[in-house]
């Protein structure tokens, strides 16, 4: 609906009231609390680490100020002074510092102010029709400040009166401000049209007073948990703000927002971590491993096209199933557990296919066997399996020779993550067969604690996560793995064998299901944005600011606190689970278990963290009244799975 159409739909209306934030004026960041992160960045740059963590503490101070006020007064809103008084009690501020922070917050808000096109056009259209307009806002800033912000956004509020909750001792969201608004506007409520972005404060509550209302919440599409605010989030926040503004009056594609935001930052980070190494020492090869390094390889190629002094990009197709088999020299109790999961039930013929050889069995080919029978079958056919694995190892090395991955010197392998075991296994195979003059280094996006043992086999570094960070973040990473693997995986099957130096892929070639968004569109947006970042031409993100912290923040912001719009779009996305890469996999967002009891919560937690996108699943359960309690209980069991990931 255009502004003119909206006014046409209410011909009897003579007065317009407009909400301010995210209706008339927005900020150049994804959510309001990110303004505080901009302040923190400036404070730290000017005065040092003392201000580190300011943004989140300031949000906490605001909440505390509100709760103090609620105890003493029913309808008043807090003021900036109340908030800064609470902050001063928390972190110790002088009066001069409080004054400085108040000024800085107002100046930063003004600097980041941007017009909301729909609201600005509506105001202009109403004025053109001779209607009077008022601005009505629940806010702790004075009216004069809102006028200043509007002016900075190119909107003049000289003719309009600005009614702010903190100056009237009443609020929109509890209804108390509406009596005052009706009194000030001085027309019948049915002659007023109110437009805002909140369904209750701007919709149902004024409607109960007899006002006509219109809610447009398109500017809230990128709002996530307010407590998650820190300077490392700002590159993503700026990107999401622009996506939000560009599609404010059109359809929202949550997947494309991910592509042009967090996922592009991850891919850019992957490429830049490799570039950094390539520029600091001579390398025999740079290899992006399949399937997670697919997009990064393409983006690195763009970089390499512009600078041929960099090593040429390689794409090394390998998988866990291939390296495990290539290293298998003995079938015993320890090794059989690697190849048959505790909950797997397969036919003998599928197990044969898993090893690429005929396993002799007394069972019919299609007879389904349990894990113990399958493992026994492996032991009974140990010789055939070992022979087959030995032959696979030869074919793998033939492939590695062909792509130049065994040439003497140091090779960098880039992979998404998570323990580095695949690249370490590969390095071991090459070292054993081609000698110590071929060395590998693993450059991973995320490493979790299991990496410790692999560090003895191969140098590893984790761009965004490693065991030098907090344990909570490591567990959060574990919960998000399925999401990132699904989004950043190449649209070809996993490699299960090699033939004549060429990879053989699994049969389950299928494009990831991204709902209404075509894979090609997702892929091209991610690739294009990441390429702009690494080439240093992205309008919002400076290349030098893409650090591990920035990538981690982007990963946590979308992976740990996804929006419902994102979850709806990814409802059918699946993750491959079988070691032989057969089958369609399972949905990353899990369905709520039925008949679950309180004592089942530990096993629900365990299942989510092992098989699903845990945080995405919890957010989807939380949105449903009947399953909300399960999400709450799981978060009590694993408190790091609560929405806040920025440390207070």
């Amino acid at each position, binding site marked *: 609906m255009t502004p003119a159409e909206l006014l046409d739909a209410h011909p009897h209306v003579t007065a317009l009231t407009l909400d301010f934030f995210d209706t008339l004026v927005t900020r150049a960041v994804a959510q309001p609390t990110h303004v505080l992160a901009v302040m923190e960045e400036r404070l730290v740059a000017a005065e040092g*680490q*003392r201000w*580190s963590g300011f943004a989140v503490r300031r949000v906490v101070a605001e909440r505390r100020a509100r709760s103090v006020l609620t105890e003493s007064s029913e309808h008043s809103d807090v003021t900036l002074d109340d908030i800064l008084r609470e902050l001063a009690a928390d972190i110790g501020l002088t009066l001069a510092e409080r004054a400085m922070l108040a000024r800085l917050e107002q100046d930063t808000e003004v600097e980041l102010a941007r017009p909301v096109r729909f609201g600005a056009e509506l105001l202009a259209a109403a004025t053109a029709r001779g209607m009077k307009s008022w601005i009505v806002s629940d806010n702790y800033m004075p009216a004069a400040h809102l006028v200043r912000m509007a002016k900075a956004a190119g909107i003049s509020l000289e003719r309009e009166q600005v009614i702010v909750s903190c100056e009237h001792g009443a609020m929109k969201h509890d209804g108390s401000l509406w009596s005052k608004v009706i009194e000030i506007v001085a027309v019948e409520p049915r002659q007023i049209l109110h437009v805002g972005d909140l369904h209750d404060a701007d919709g149902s509550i004024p409607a109960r007073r007899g006002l006509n209302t219109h809610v447009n919440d398109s500017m809230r599409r990128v709002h996530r948990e307010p407590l998650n605010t820190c300077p490392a989030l700002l590159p993503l926040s700026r990107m999401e703000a622009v996506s939000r503004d560009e599609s404010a009056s059109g359809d929202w594609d949550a997947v494309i927002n991910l592509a042009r935001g967090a996922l592009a930052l991850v891919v850019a980070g992957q490429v830049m971590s490799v570039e*950094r*190494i390539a520029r*600091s*020492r001579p390398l025999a090869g740079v290899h992006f491993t399949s399937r997670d390094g697919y997009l990064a390889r393409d983006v690195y190629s763009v970089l390499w096209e512009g600078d041929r002094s960099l090593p040429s990009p390689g794409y090394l197709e390998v998988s866990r199933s291939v390296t495990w088999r290539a290293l298998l020299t003995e079938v015993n109790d320890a090794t059989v557990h690697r190849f048959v999961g505790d909950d797997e039930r397969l036919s003998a013929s599928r197990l044969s296919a898993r090893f690429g050889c005929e396993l002799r069995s007394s069972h019919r080919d299609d007879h389904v066997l349990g894990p113990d029978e399958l493992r026994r079958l492996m032991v009974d056919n140990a010789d055939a399996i070992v022979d087959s694995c030995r032959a696979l190892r030869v074919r793998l090395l033939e492939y590695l020779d062909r792509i130049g991955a065994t040439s003497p010197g*140091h090779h*960098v392998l880039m992979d998404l993550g998570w323990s580095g075991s695949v690249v370490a296994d590969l390095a071991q195979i090459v070292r054993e067969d081609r000698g110590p003059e071929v*060395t*590998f*280094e693993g450059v991973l996006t995320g490493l979790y*604690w*299991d990496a*410790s*043992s692999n*560090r*003895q*086999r*191969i*140098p*590893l*570094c984790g761009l965004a996560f*490693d*065991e*030098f960070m*907090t*344990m*909570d973040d*490591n567990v959060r990473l574990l919960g998000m793995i399925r999401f990132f693997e699904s989004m950043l995986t190449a649209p070809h099957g996993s490699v299960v064998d090699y033939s004549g130096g060429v990879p053989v892929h699994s049969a389950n070639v299928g494009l990831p299901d991204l709902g209404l968004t075509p894979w090609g569109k997702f892929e091209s947006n991610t690739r294009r944005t990441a390429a702009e970042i690494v080439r240093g031409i992205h309008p919002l993100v400076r290349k030098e600011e893409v650090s591990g912290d920035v990538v981690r923040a982007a990963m946590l912001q979308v992976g740990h606190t996804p929006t419902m719009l994102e979850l709806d779009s990814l409802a059918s996305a699946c993750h491959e689970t079988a070691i032989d890469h057969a089958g369609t996999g399972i949905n990353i967002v899990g369905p709520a278990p039925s008949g679950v009891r309180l004592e089942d919560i530990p096993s629900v937690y365990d299942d989510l963290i092992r098989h699903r996108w845990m945080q995405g699943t919890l957010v989807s359960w939380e949105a449903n009244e009947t399953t909300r309690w399960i999400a709450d209980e799981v978060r009590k069991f694993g408190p790091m799975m609560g929405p806040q990931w920025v440390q207070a």
Partner: protein
Amino acid sequence: MKVAVIMRTYERPVLLARAIASVQQQTFRDWELVIVNNGGDPGTVDGIVDVARRTTGSGAITVLHLPERTGMEDASNQGLRGSQSDYFAIHDDDDVWHPDFLSVTVARLESSPSSAAVVTSLTKVIETMKGNKVWPVREESFWLNPGRLTYRGMIGANTFPPIAALFRRSVLEEVGYFDSSLPVLGDWDFNLRAVRAGGFLFEERTLARYHVRTEDSDRSASNSIVDGESLHRSVKLELQNRWLPEIVDGISKGLLSINAQAAGDLEETRIAGIRAVADVDVEAIANRTANILETRRVFRRVWRGLRSPGHALRAVKRIIGG
């Protein structure tokens, strides 16, 4: 080199590999890592260092293989004597640094030339290690503040592990090296000498992670403190006895230590006492109170009945009548 990082190790390859990576990932680049292999298998350490050297980064890695196992402090001293630098740190092979540890601590000492050391906030990580696998169990914040980094704050007990500190090397010339005769707590003894030479700065940012293993971990993975509690106690007593004749600021250093320890113990007892009171079974108290009140009510009824028999008779009739 600006910083010498001394890393003592003995037969803990998986931890050593992690500790080396924590040094290599420092954003501050001007460091030399001296690994002192304290009598362990040279081949294992060389293998890990060989892998580590292949990584991209700066800084040099030197390995000193000691022919047989010696004390921790002697191993530190050998590492220190084998290096040259403006600053030094003792980085145990089971602990790790945040990538910004050296950049922040070096900057703090550069801007405060009179300080002997800087100590950062740290996290205690409790982990289990079995075979070649290490996994975290939980994290705790390690209580530290500027007061605990003064001579008086440190005299009662060792207040921080080595991983949290960066020292100015000139301190070694002023107060001497680590006391090789001490099997444990050599860092405490050194810290007490060093703090009198220049004072310690406190860095609020949490930049170090001090790891201890759970009791069910492999024996080889144990911590000197967790595993050798009785040894720590006896060495502490020995040190306090040794310090008794030593007069600092007109007071016996040994007595000062004993008093500070007693005050600390008293404080802990007080806190434990408060906790014990808080942990009393509130429900049991409530039940007991309810019983007392019920008994009182019955007594009151009987007493009223005795004082006014007519009233009692009417009450009995009411009960019987239903």
